[in-house]
């Protein structure tokens, strides 16, 4: 019995220590990256262009590239994700094989490695769709769409983030009480009207959370854009959909491994990592907060 008591105490303590270890490493990473880049985090760094072979200057094009990437990505992934969630939750027969297959597809999609999405983007968007478009629209021998660019990178990223949107929208659709659905239908509204006027407005929180989470994910992933559009250095911002772009995550990767002077640019690397971390961090913070508030509202 004595031993058992120790065992009991031991389990509680060890498991508490595990939690502490995770949170400590979270804080340690944040602190480490902040203290490494602190001296470089100036307004000029955020709004400036890289200079002197990327050993000086700022990261403005990388920030703009990342923002454009997630914007174009959201245009594609938010509607698709939301509609799929609505189908799965409102229309589909939960027991049918078809629904199960779609659900399995969504789960599988969220487990596909991001590098495979990159290969897919290259094989499908660039080599198949892009090259096909060039055959139709461009002059012979001219490559316009059949090469890495911001559009294909965004589309690749959109496919990666669809499951994120679906999960979060579905979660909020489930919290819409069935009374509301029944009420809408009882008042003579059709199914689509009920969904449009009652269910979607009531689950706008979920759509919002899903969008924010997807953006956070898209901003941080690098593997899918390695060969679908990210560029090492561009003196200009992307001006059209067929341009390549700079990206915060990719910038960290190339600066840490391929920059012309790894040691001298360490501060820039830390500061870039900090900027990216703050972006994804605050996005998921907002998402968690929105969800939390929403749950509180449901409870009361």
């Amino acid at each position, binding site marked *: 019995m004595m031993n058992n008591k120790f065992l009991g105490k031991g389990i509680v303590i060890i498991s508490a220590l595990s939690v502490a270890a995770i949170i400590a490493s979270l804080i340690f990473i944040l602190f480490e990256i902040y203290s490494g880049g602190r001296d470089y985090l100036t307004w000029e760094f955020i709004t400036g262009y890289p200079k002197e072979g990327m050993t000086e200057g700022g990261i403005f094009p990388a920030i703009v590239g990342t923002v454009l990437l997630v914007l174009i990505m959201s245009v594609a992934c938010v509607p698709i994700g939301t509609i799929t969630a609505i189908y799965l939750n409102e229309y589909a027969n939960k027991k049918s094989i078809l629904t199960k297959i779609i659900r399995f597809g969504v789960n599988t999609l969220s487990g596909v490695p991001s590098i495979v999405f990159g290969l897919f983007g290259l094989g499908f968007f660039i080599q198949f769709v892009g090259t096909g478009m060039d055959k139709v629209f461009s002059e012979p021998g001219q490559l316009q769409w059949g090469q890495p660019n911001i559009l294909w990178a965004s589309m690749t990223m959109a496919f990666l983030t669809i499951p994120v949107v679906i999960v979060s929208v579905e979660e909020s659709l489930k919290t819409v009480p069935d009374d509301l659905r029944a009420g809408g239908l009882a008042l003579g509204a059709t199914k689509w009207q009920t969904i449009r006027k009652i269910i979607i407005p009531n689950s706008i929180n979920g759509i919002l959370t899903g969008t924010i989470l997807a953006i956070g994910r898209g901003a941080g992933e690098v593997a899918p854009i390695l060969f679908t559009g990210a560029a*090492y*250095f561009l003196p200009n911002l992307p*001006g059209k959909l067929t341009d390549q772009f700079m990206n915060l995550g990719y910038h960290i990767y190339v600066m840490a*491994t*391929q920059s*012309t*002077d*790894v040691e001298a640019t360490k501060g820039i690397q830390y500061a870039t990592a900090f900027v990216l971390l703050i972006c994804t961090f605050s996005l998921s913070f907002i998402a968690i907060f929105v969800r939390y508030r929403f749950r509180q509202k449901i409870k009361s």
Partner: protein
Amino acid sequence: MKKIIFAVVIMAAAFGFYMQSKVITVKGSDTMVIVAQRWAEKYMSEKSGITIQVTGGGSGTGIAALINGTTDICNASRPMKPSEREKLKQRFNTLGVEVKVAKDGLSVYLNEVNQVKELSLQQIKDIYTGKVTNWKEVGGKDSRIIVYGRENSSGTYVYFKDNVLNGADYTATMQSLPGTAAVVNAVVKDKNAIGFGGAAYAKGIKFTAVKKDANSPAFLPTEENIKNGNYPIARYLYLYLRNKPTGEIKEYVDWILSKEGQEIVSKVGYFPVK
């Protein structure tokens, strides 16, 4: 919600139709990024209305991009291979245009505390093929040799393999790093390390003097030794184009070969072709 979606769509559309100035894309060797980027910066500051996009990734990347039609100019730290010319010919019916733009001594890096001062080509080969694994076998301390090299896409990797290893495979223990600067950085941090790369990147490391064979004198990769051919592993750096340059590209290439362009070559640690 609708308004937001509408606004985003409008923005995306507007963004799609926004045009910009003439762009020259340059892609390829990491060894050359350091110089290509300075060329681009200087050239753009002197000439408005032209944009030069410089990307690294390796000579293989650049040549692949040239073949795939995704770049105008390719930087290469090795000559194009016949198989690549063949592919270029299939796609564009041209064998490409080669421009020699700089000369480089391929240097072997050691950590500053390493006692070894000179190595023969044979010793370097033995280290990189895994025959020699301890520094004491080549006159150093008794400790394991940590071998660093470049990713197999880089021209430096291929050039070194062809001309130093005589075509033999690298040892599997070689850690491949994606950039020359990363190799330098790794050698700085690791006192038992050996690495190779362009002379321009060297900072905080020391060069080994290289001997052609065991009995010949050793030479450091200095401008003089490379110019008169004493240093045994020197190479050209190239630009490749699909066709004879015209218009803006011709102006740019001519500028690189001009005195001004070649001054930048010396400034970053390579040697001018003329």
